């Protein structure tokens, strides 16, 4: 797997989470704004209800004052008169509150002012009736009856109140519809945000799962490759160790063979050198190839003066007129031993020394390759030759 793949996956996952966060923030912003609007709408509804309550209060106070006045006119009881005054006071208070509540709403304020005018007319009539009542009951009733016919009646105030209430209720219905739509918008915004976030989360999860699967596959492939590599390394190491051991064994065997050959050579050299008899190693042509130290001692000749020279140059067989050691040469060619032949060997000064000659053919397998001539000294005066 390319090293850039995890980075790309990480970037994509981060983008997904950024989108999720953005959707969440957008949903929250929209929801909070709608909640604020709903709060403002609720304030307005409360305000409208307060206006309705106050104008209902105006109507109720009007009825109460009117009723108290009429009762007072019949009973002339000061408590009824006080109740009438109290109702008029409440009427004024309701009107003041209604004006205050509608001061930012010109159309409603106009209606409230009209209601106030009607109420003031009614209050004025009542005050005049009360003033009349202190002097003459009959006159007062007449005045009240005349006022009912010419000025604003309670019914007129009631109609004004109902008109104003109808307008307020219509506004309430409108605000209610708007509030419902806002709530729906908030709901849809929240659900849409949740759905979108859910989809984005599913996408991110799919990406992460895909990445994890790719990582697992890559890890498994890497582990398998490592296992194969380790196996190959182990096999190769085992091969190398085996080869090394084999080479070491061969090397040791060669060293052993070499020293054994040297040892044997040295051993036989010592044996050869220790012989008291004169020993010549000769070729098939009877030329000298090697001598032992006894030859040097007896002949006073250095090996260099003997080697590669015909044996006949130094050794003579008794009774051999040719002086070429023919019997010896013949025996050697035929591969047979020749024993006890009387002979002589001449030293460096040409003086003969009597010897007994024996020939041993040397074979390499079945083939005669040379011979060993041993001369047993019969009489050798060492002092006379020194």
């Amino acid at each position, binding site marked *: 797997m390319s090293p850039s793949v995890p980075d790309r996956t990480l970037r994509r996952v981060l983008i997904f989470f950024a989108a999720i966060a953005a959707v969440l923030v957008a949903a929250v912003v929209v929801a909070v704004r709608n909640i604020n609007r709903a709060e403002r709408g609720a304030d307005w509804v409360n305000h409208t209800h307060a206006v309705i309550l106050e104008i209902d209060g105006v109507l109720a106070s009007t009825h109460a004052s009117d009723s108290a006045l009429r009762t007072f006119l019949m009973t002339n009881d000061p408590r009824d008169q006080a109740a009438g005054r109290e109702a008029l006071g409440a009427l004024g208070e309701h009107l003041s509150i209604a004006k205050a509540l509608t001061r930012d709403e010109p159309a409603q304020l106009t209606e409230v002012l009209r209601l106030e005018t009607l109420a003031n007319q009614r209050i004025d009539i009542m005050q005049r009736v009360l003033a009349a009542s202190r002097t003459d009951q009959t006159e007062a009733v007449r005045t009240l009856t005349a006022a009912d016919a010419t000025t604003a009646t309670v019914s007129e105030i009631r109609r004004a109140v109902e008109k104003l209430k109808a307008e307020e209720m219509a506004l309430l219905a409108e605000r209610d519809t708007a509030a419902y739509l806002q709530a729906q918008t908030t709901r849809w915004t929240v659900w849409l945000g949740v759905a979108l976030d859910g989809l984005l989360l599913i996408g991110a999860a799919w990406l992460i799962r895909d990445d994890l699967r790719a990582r697992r596959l890559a890890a498994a492939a890497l582990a398998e490759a490592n296992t194969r590599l380790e196996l190959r390394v182990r096999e190769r190491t085992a091969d190398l160790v085996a080869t090394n051991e084999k080479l070491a064994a061969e090397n040791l065997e060669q060293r*052993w063979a070499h020293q*054994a050959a040297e*040892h044997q050579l040295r051993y036989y050299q010592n044996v050869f050198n220790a012989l008291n008899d004169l020993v010549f190693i000769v070729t098939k042509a009877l030329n000298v190839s090697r001598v032992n130290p006894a030859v040097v001692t007896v002949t006073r000749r250095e090996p260099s003066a003997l080697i590669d020279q015909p044996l006949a140059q130094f050794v003579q067989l008794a009774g051999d007129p040719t002086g070429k050691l023919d019997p010896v040469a013949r025996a050697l060619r035929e591969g047979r031993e020749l024993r006890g032949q009387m002979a002589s060997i001449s030293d460096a000064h040409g003086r003969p020394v009597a010897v007994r000659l024996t020939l041993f053919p040397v074979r390499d397998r079945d083939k005669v390759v040379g011979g060993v001539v041993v001369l047993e000294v019969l009489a050798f005066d060492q002092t006379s030759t020194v």
Partner: protein
Amino acid sequence: MQKHILIVDDEVEIRDLLELFLSSQGYRVTTLEGADEALRVVHSDRPDLIISDLQLEESDGLAMIEKLKVTLPDTPVILLTGVLFDAQVFRETLSKKVSAYLMKTTPLAKIKAEVERLLAV
């Protein structure tokens, strides 16, 4: 447990090579130069097998083996020498004193086989 092999030879090269080879085969090896030393050592560290040369520096290998046999009557002995003995001579004389006779030119593989044969008994 590792088998103990005593090598007696006056030539250092032979001692070293045999020690190297037999150690690599898993044996514990003691190498000595002379007969006197060998006769002394076997009392404290008994070998399972003795490999001896015939011609030692100051003694005869066969004489040393005779003395060793007093202490170690059942210990097998290989005579490893450069002296060539006739098979009949070995059978009639040397076989009474030694378990096996090997020329020094014998390959190490054959020496190993002989050692294993004698130690397996």
